[in-house]
Structure formats: structure tokens, C-alpha cells
């Protein structure tokens, strides 16, 4: 059952081939058997899952089932789940039982999905390898000596190892797309504001966006359908109609213009990954699309801009964790300042502290103009590059990550090298554009992801392209042999 997609499982459930309780049992057993090695899931909720599965079965029998009814999912542990521990991968929230559900969680529950538990992640979503989690690193199911990517590494690994049919993720600088690429699955970061951020623990509020991760574009379309939409509880939620994402999956690609930014194929890109990407782009060409070279001349500014904007916003967002009302509190504080300082010093891990320090510095008196204001201006330049490119093309394509999954521990000593992993994904967050990563031909048995970047609210177009590609190819169906 675990090899099937949401579409296939949904059909099986509605035909009565198996029940959601049986399906849920199957995945609970897989998690028990396989998660010890992978560490993708840090909180399991089997009793709740079976209760939700029972409820879904009743809906299915009553003929009231939707396409997601009874399908097991894992939630990234950044999403608040009522009555269930929501740690955000941090010691700071190790004791935090959320009193409410995130809008995303509520919507997926409402669609009848069964939550198996919470996925491991980089602490407060800060990382590109899932090694900064308080609960230990996640291992890549394709090669357990390697990282799964991050920050949604647990989500990606859980889907890749078929411990869940789907997962939620969040993406601030590539945190859905890069782990999707490194684990061989399909992941979508929607347009900024497309999916509600309510109940999603904030990292960098002008960049954060939630999105779905699954095996195929077809499945991602169903998940996005349930997740997207205006939410009055999120002041940055976009008040835009939500199209039917499944309806346009089969549209023809004839005459569609694909832009290939020359900056995404230059120095720093692994040669074998480049070959794999070019082979995939040729598939699109064979489907009738036209390839056009474009330029995003300010691409080199994306990483430095991001490492001002994101830490600045993170230092402000994470000031709420003070040891007073919830979360970690140090032992025996001698006064209020000691309580703040030691609770934060002991509650946050090294990468989170590093980013809070950078952000605090960038926003401190005398430096604001030189760093934060300057970065907001370079952010505008990066955004304008895309605006100009989209006057000529319908979609932009390139690699998701510069190389395949790297070894555990390999980049932990050098933060700047680690940051360069997100070199191709960060710009879409800065501009607020939707981006998708889907699997293409592996290199030495390790997955490679192709990235598609679309214009604002063009998620349906990205899913259409990917679906047509996945009808022609089988790469998205590959799974680690050991996990079969």
C-alpha cells in the first residue's frame, strides 16, 4: 500500500479495497520499523491517527469522502497541533503542547486526512541539512550516511521512505524544495501569502510560506487545494481566488516558453547534476515547450541579501521566547535578566543563536541602514530581475540544489558553505514567487531535483508542467530499495 500515491490510495479507499484504519495501521507499523534509523518523525500519535482513520472510514462509507479522506500525512513540527507537542525542533519548545491548531492543520483535518505525527526539522527551520534539530539529525533514506536536506528534512525523508503518503513543509529560503530534491520527492513552495501562516511558528515573516510535499504533482495539487486560501487570522494572507489545481494538470505545453537563467548553470553547479537537469529540460522540449535563455543579473546578491533579511526578522520573531509564559525556563534564575538570558542561552541551539546574533547586529543602532535597509533594496533588484524575465517567458527552470545530498557532518563547521546550498532557491523567497522541485535522473544513486519558478499565483502552471513531465518519465516513482 505504501508504494501508492494519494490518487491511487483514494481510489482504493472509495472502492472498499481497504479501509483507512488498515492503511493507517500499515503506516504506523512502517514508522515503528523504519523510523529508528531515519529519525524523520519525532512525535507519533498512533491513537489519534486511528481515531481519525475511523472517522474517515465512516465518511467514506457514507459517500461523503473527498480526495484526501483517510490518507495518512505527517506534519512538520513547526505547525501547531492542538494537544500534541509542537517543538519546532528546539529544546526551547520541548515541553510545549500547543493549545490550538494551525490553519493548515485544521484545513487538512477538515479534508479528512489522518495525522501520523510530527516531522523532525532543523531547529526553528534554520538549516539546510536537518542537523540543527535538538532531536538529532535526520538520515537520508537513499543513503543513511547523508543528510536529507533541510529544514523540512523530516518531512522529505518520511515521504521518501514511504512512512507517510504526504507531508507538510515550510520554505523560507528553500526548506521545502531543497530537501524534496535531495530525497527524490515533489515539493511546492507556493506564492507568499497563498497558504496561511497562522499557527506556523514564525522564522522570517516576509519569507515564510507553507507548502505540500508528496510523490507527484498530481498529489501535490490535491494537497495544495486543501491548504490554500485566504485566512483572516494571518495578516499577510493573500485574498485571491483559489483555482482548481487538478483541472489544468493535463493542459498542453505546446508553445510554452521556459526561461533558463544563465546564472543558474554556471560555476558551483556539479557537472553530473547539470547533465541530469539538462536531460530533464529536454523532456519538456519534447513536450512542445520552447527553451529561452534569460538572465537574472542580480542572482549573486540573493544569498547575502537573505542572510541579512532572514536573521533580522528571526531575531525579532524569536524574542518572544523569553522563558516567562511558555517554553523552556532555566533553573533558579537570580533575577529577571538572568531568567531571560539563561533561558534563551540554554534553550536555543548553536545555529539559532548564530542567526539571532547576526540579526540583532544588523538591526542595532548605527547599522540598520548599512545592512537591513540595504538588503531590502537589493531584494527589490532581485525581484525586478524576475519581473523582467517573466515578460519573456512563462516559467523559469534550473537546478534546485548545486549538488546531491552531502555527508552528515560535512558542512557543520562552516556556516557560510552551508548557506550556499540554498543559492538557487533563496531568490524565489525574496521575490515571493512560487517554486517547485521535482525528481529527475539520479546521479550515482542519489536523487536530483529540477526547480521550476513561476510568476505570482502560477502554482497551477508549475503543477501542470510537472504533471506532464511525470506522465512521460518514471523518476518520481523511484524509491530507496531498502525501503521497498
Amino acid at each position, binding site marked *: 500500500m505504501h508504494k501508492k500515491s494519494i490518487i491511487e490510495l483514494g481510489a482504493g479507499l472509495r472502492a472498499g479495497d481497504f479501509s483507512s484504519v488498515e492503511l493507517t495501521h500499515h503506516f504506523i507499523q512502517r514508522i515503528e520499523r523504519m523510523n529508528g534509523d531515519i529519525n524523520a518523525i519525532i512525535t507519533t500519535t498512533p491513537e489519534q491517527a486511528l481515531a481519525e482513520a475511523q472517522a474517515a472510514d465512516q465518511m467514506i462509507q457514507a459517500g461523503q469522502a473527498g480526495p484526501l479522506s483517510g490518507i495518512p500525512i505527517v506534519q512538520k513540527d513547526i505547525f501547531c497541533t492542538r494537544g500534541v507537542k509542537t517543538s519546532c525542533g528546539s529544546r526551547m519548545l520541548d515541553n510545549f503542547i500547543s493549545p490550538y491548531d494551525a490553519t493548515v492543520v485544521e484545513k487538512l483535518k477538515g479534508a479528512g486526512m489522518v495525522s501520523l505525527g510530527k516531522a523532525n526539522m532543523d531547529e526553528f527551520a534554520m538549516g539546510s541539512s536537518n542537523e540543527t534539530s535538538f532531536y538529532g539529525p535526520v538520515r537520508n533514506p537513499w543513503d543513511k550516511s547523508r543528510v536529507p536536506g533541510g529544514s523540512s528534512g523530516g518531512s522529505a525523508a518520511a515521504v521518501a521512505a514511504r512512512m507517510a503518503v504526504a507531508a507538510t513543509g515550510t520554505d523560507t529560503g528553500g526548506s521545502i524544495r531543497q530537501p524534496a530534491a535531495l530525497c527524490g520527492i515533489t515539493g511546492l513552495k507556493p506564492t507568499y501569502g497563498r497558504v496561511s501562516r497562522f499557527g506556523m511558528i514564525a522564522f522570517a515573516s516576509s519569507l515564510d510560506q507553507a507548502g505540500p510535499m508528496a510523490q507527484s504533482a498530481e498529489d501535490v495539487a490535491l494537497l495544495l487545494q486543501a491548504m490554500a486560501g485566504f485566512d483572516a487570522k494571518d495578516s499577510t494572507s493573500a485574498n485571491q481566488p483559489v483555482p482548481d489545481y487538478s483541472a489544468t494538470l493535463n493542459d498542453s505545453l505546446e508553445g510554452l516558453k521556459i526561461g533558463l537563467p544563465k546564472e543558474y548553470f554556471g560555476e558551483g553547479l556539479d557537472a553530473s547534476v547539470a547533465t541530469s537537469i539538462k536531460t530533464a529540460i529536454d523532456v519538456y522540449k519534447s513536450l512542445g515547450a520552447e527553451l529561452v535563455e534569460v538572465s537574472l543579473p542580480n542572482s549573486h546578491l540573493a544569498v547575502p541579501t537573505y542572510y541579512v533579511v532572514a536573521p533580522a526578522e528571526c531575531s525579532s520573531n524569536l524574542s518572544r521566547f523569553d522563558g516567562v509564559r*511558555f517554553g523552556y525556563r532555566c533553573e533558579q534564575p537570580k533575577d529577571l535578566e538572568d531568567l531571560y538570558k539563561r533561558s534563551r542561552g540554554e534553550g536555543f541551539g548553536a545555529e539559532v543563536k548564530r542567526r539571532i546574533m547576526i540579526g540583532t*547586529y544588523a538591526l542595532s543602532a548605527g547599522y540598520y541602514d548599512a545592512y537591513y535597509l540595504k538588503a*531590502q533594496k537589493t*531584494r527589490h533588484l532581485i525581484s525586478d530581475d524576475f519581473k523582467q524575465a517573466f515578460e519573456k517567458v512563462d516559467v523559469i527552470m534550473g537546478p534546485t540544489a548545486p549538488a546531491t545530498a552531502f555527508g552528515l557532518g560535512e558542512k557543520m563547521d562552516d*556556516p557560510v558553505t552551508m548557506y550556499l546550498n540554498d543559492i538557487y532557491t533563496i531568490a524565489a523567497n525574496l521575490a515571493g514567487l512560487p517554486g517547485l522541485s521535482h525528481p529527475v535522473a539520479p546521479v550515482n544513486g542519489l536523487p536530483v531535483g529540477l526547480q521550476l519558478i513561476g510568476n505570482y499565483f502560477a502554482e497551477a502552471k508549475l503543477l501542470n508542467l510537472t504533471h506532464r513531465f511525470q506522465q512521460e518519465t518514471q523518476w518520481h516513482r523511484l524509491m530507496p530499495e531498502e525501503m521497498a
Partner: protein
Amino acid sequence: MSLDRSDVEKIAHLARMALDEAQVNLYVQELSHILTLMEQLKAADTDDIEPMSHPLHMTQRLRSDEITEVNCREENQAIAPQVENGLYLVPQVIE
């Protein structure tokens, strides 16, 4: 641009984070390295460029001033480190 010990200690104080000796030493190295990355922005010509604070250039949405929150005091305090009579306790602030 590089930072020294006193810079790192000052930033840690502003961020209200206690750092031990080893962490201070580590951050002196690492933060300087990251600042070098950030310094790359200086070369960009941004004259006449408006700062971008929001990707969709949206303005803040307003709503009518009505109470929409329900009272969750008990649930919220159940997860607090220390409460008494409905109040959050911290070390004594005023002597």
C-alpha cells in the same frame, strides 16, 4: 569587517542570550565570516531603489475593533513554567 570579543558580548546582551566562553570565541570567528558575506551587498548600486519589505507590496489589512478571541487563560497557563492565582511568576523585579 570583523568583530571582537566585546562586540560579540554586546550583541549577546542586546539579544538577551547568555553565552559561555567557548561560544563567545566561536562566534567571534563565525560572525566575522558571515559579515564578510553580508558585506558583498555594499558593491550593489541601489541608488533610487525603493526598499522592499513585503513581496506582494500589500498594505496592512484592517478589521473592525471587535473581540474575536475566546478566553484560553487556563489552557495557556497549563503550559507555563510557573503560575500562581492566574498570574505568571518571574523573579522579584521591584525590591
